[in-house]
């Protein structure tokens, strides 16, 4: 679990998975469904597109709402999750569509938002 957190992890949306096969990434999305085994769940990004996230160990807690996943993109364009964090929404809902717009900006201006 250690190494992927020591390198740059570009923030991406579902559409960018194919360009990052084999690479560490950071993906933010809303929980859509969780597989009964707890080893797989589906997140939707700010454009409503779905990404499958796989875990090496089954989930040991309930997850819901918006998650930020750090992991590596597999050959099947899923994400092998190394860690995740739930975004707090107790005070305000997270605007995932706005986050998606921000992603477009940072992809357009990598000189002002470098991933090393």
């Amino acid at each position, binding site marked *: 679990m250690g190494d992927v957190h020591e390198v740059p992890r*570009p923030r991406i949306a579902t559409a960018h998975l194919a360009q990052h096969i084999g690479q560490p990434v950071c993906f933010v999305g809303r929980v859509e469904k969780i597989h009964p085994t707890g080893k797989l769940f589906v997140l939707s990004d700010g454009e409503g597109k779905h990404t499958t996230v796989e875990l090496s160990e089954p989930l040991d807690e309930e997850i819901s709402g918006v998650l930020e996943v750090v992991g590596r993109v597999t050959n099947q364009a899923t994400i092998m999750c190394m860690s995740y964090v739930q975004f707090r929404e107790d005070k305000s809902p997270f605007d995932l569509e706005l986050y998606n717009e921000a992603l477009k900006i940072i992809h357009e201006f990598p000189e002002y938002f470098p991933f090393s």
Partner: protein
Amino acid sequence: GGYMQSPGGFGSPAGTQAEKKQRIRSQNIVPCTVSQLLAAEQVDETFRICDVEISQVTIMGIIRHAEKAPTNILYKVDDMTAAPMDVRQWVDTDEAGGENVVVPPGTYVKVAGHLRSFQNKKSLVAFKIMPLENMNEFTTHILEIVNAHMILRKNLMSASRAPQSFSSGGISDVGGYGGGGSLPVNGLTAHQSQVLNLIKNCPVPEGMSLQELKLQLHNMSMSTIKQAVEFLSSEGHIYSTVDDDHYKSTDAE
């Protein structure tokens, strides 16, 4: 927050090829990514990211690790752009009841602090660490980073060549380093920019008179024009010529 220093001080009347590369002295508090801080070059006491001088910065990331020592708390803050950065927060040991609350790992925080480098390793000394209550602030921070660096770099480039108009591609209202209310881009409000542009484009040797400005700027009152002229003059963008009613631009060719 901090405040944006207007680039006006660089419009020196000499303005010739002898001009060295000028840089905007940053008195701002600049939102940055960890990757930008790691890439910042240090010359003597100052740090620079692509020639933009930085000192006070804000970063936003998740706490990966927290270690409490008697005089300080050492955090590792991760914003995904690089490896987590060391952030040190000094503890007030005189405080009665003494315990500084350690922010737990897994919390998203906004850190405001000074960039430091010791034995080639960069770190931050934080004067403020605030857990985020609204994650939309995080999205805003991303946008502010792009905006801030874009504006700061463009200001640098336009200060060192013959500048055209001061419009930049950045969004104009950003909190944290802007100051209040209607934030001017590049330190000039819309009125000031209009007045400056007219003065710049005036070909007459004695420059543009206040009366001329009033004729051309129908929507502006004389007092607004005078205020703009006073500001531009004190910032060094314009100077009076034959009398206090005539002005030329310091950047004119």
